[in-house]
């Protein structure tokens, strides 16, 4: 069962991408295109890229060299979209709160720069796992991207947890799926790029990657398509007269005080 080109292998490579395309279509129909444009673009291009790599693998007319070229192109496009998606998640989580957003932007720039440096060092010290530069480079590129992605997503999770911020359900689901995928892929690509595994054992890493990706696509489907009972607007509380007059003045006073504090 855990062999290349087995039924399970074909299913794990194609099914999550088909589901992701369907998810993109349904998200578009449900009006997420304004709220999550980068996620929809990521879902479409990532799925199409993975399917292109799949067909490059199974079609006998495609040479091994061309397969790796297709893989490189797919990884590059997917990684650009992933970083744009991380920026979209960050904006949704922190931008509504000015004080946290300011500090968060400052910190994430520092974390990002440190991660790029760490990823460059990890790539520089990695041994060559293949005599072919195209293959070796692809493995290192994957390791580099997942290292940076994991760090940035963990920062968003920990920073929002510290301030007890609860992102909206779809945003949380997207971030969770992306982060689980990044952590598992980082581990598998680190092994692939640094340990000279024989082809038979490397297939197991492919299954781990594909299985994780499948779970993450299901997480995205659950969080985007299934309505949570808790997020439904609660019944309006029993309120007295409408809050006008002195309440409004209070708010203005506090706003003035806050502005004075910020500009001090």
């Amino acid at each position, binding site marked *: 069962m855990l062999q290349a080109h087995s039924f399970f292998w074909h299913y794990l490579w194609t099914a999550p991408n088909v589901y992701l395309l369907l998810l993109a279509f349904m998200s578009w129909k449900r009006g997420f295109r304004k709220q999550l444009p980068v996620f929809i673009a990521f879902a479409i291009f990532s799925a199409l890229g993975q399917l292109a790599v799949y067909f490059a693998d199974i079609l006998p007319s495609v040479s091994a060299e061309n397969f790796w070229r297709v893989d490189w192109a797919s990884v590059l496009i997917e990684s650009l979209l992933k970083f744009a998606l991380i920026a979209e998640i960050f904006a949704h989580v922190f931008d*509504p*709160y*000015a*004080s*946290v957003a300011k*500090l968060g932007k400052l910190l994430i720039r520092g974390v990002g720069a440190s991660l790029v440096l760490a990823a460059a060092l*990890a790539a520089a*010290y*990695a041994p060559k796992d293949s005599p072919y530069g195209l293959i070796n480079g692809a493995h290192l590129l994957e*390791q580099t991207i997942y*290292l940076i992605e*994991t760090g940035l*997503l*963990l920062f968003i*999770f*920990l920073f929002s*947890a*510290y*301030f*007890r*911020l*609860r992102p909206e359900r779809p945003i949380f689901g997207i971030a*969770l799926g992306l*982060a*689980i995928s990044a*952590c*598992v892929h*980082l*581990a598998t690509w*680190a*092994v692939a*790029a*640094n*340990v000279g595994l024989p082809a038979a054992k490397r297939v197991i890493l492919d299954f781990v990657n594909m299985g994780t990706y499948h779970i993450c696509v299901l997480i995205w489907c659950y969080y985007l398509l299934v309505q949570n009972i*808790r*997020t439904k*607007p*609660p019944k*309006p*509380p*029993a*309120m*007295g*007269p409408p*809050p006008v007059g002195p*309440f409004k003045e*209070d*708010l203005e*006073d*506090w*706003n003035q*005080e*806050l502005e004075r*504090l910020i500009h*001090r």
Partner: protein
Amino acid sequence: MTLAIILVIAAALGLALLLWTTFSRSLSISGDASLAGQIQPIDIAAFRNLVDPAEDAYLRRRLPASELRVVRRERLRAMLVYVQTAGRNAAVLTSMAQNALASTDAETVEAARQLVSNAALLRSNATVALFRIRVAMVWPTSGVAHAPVLLGYERTYEQLSGSAMLLGRLKNPAAPVRIAAS
């Protein structure tokens, strides 16, 4: 091989941290009533007195160096408890305000958003203040604890208190939230 082991351990730790934050997030979602019970009101006047540089200068003039260190450490310990409590209150208020964000009333949502922003500002200030207080406890005669962050701290707390009361009144006029004891 060593690099692979380091990266695999880092990824496993990252995954564990991620799952821990996810589960603690789902466990921390509770009702306003239980959250309000977690708030510990703070006497802002007493805190203001503790961080007042004039009080500190007076003690410096009146007490010998060895006694001053003992008194300063006691005052710093009290300050630490105040700031820790305020930081915890800010976190509880953030959770309450996040619950209020689901309201259908636009004014309540705006007040909740304002409260989250104020609470977050207070929580980040509390982190810096706690660090400074701990440094000052090691070196009690320094003025580290009386830095601008700490001096503006009680003002931020008052603002937070006001925002919390406003949100409390908007949600339930009969029972506003109080986080200040004076």
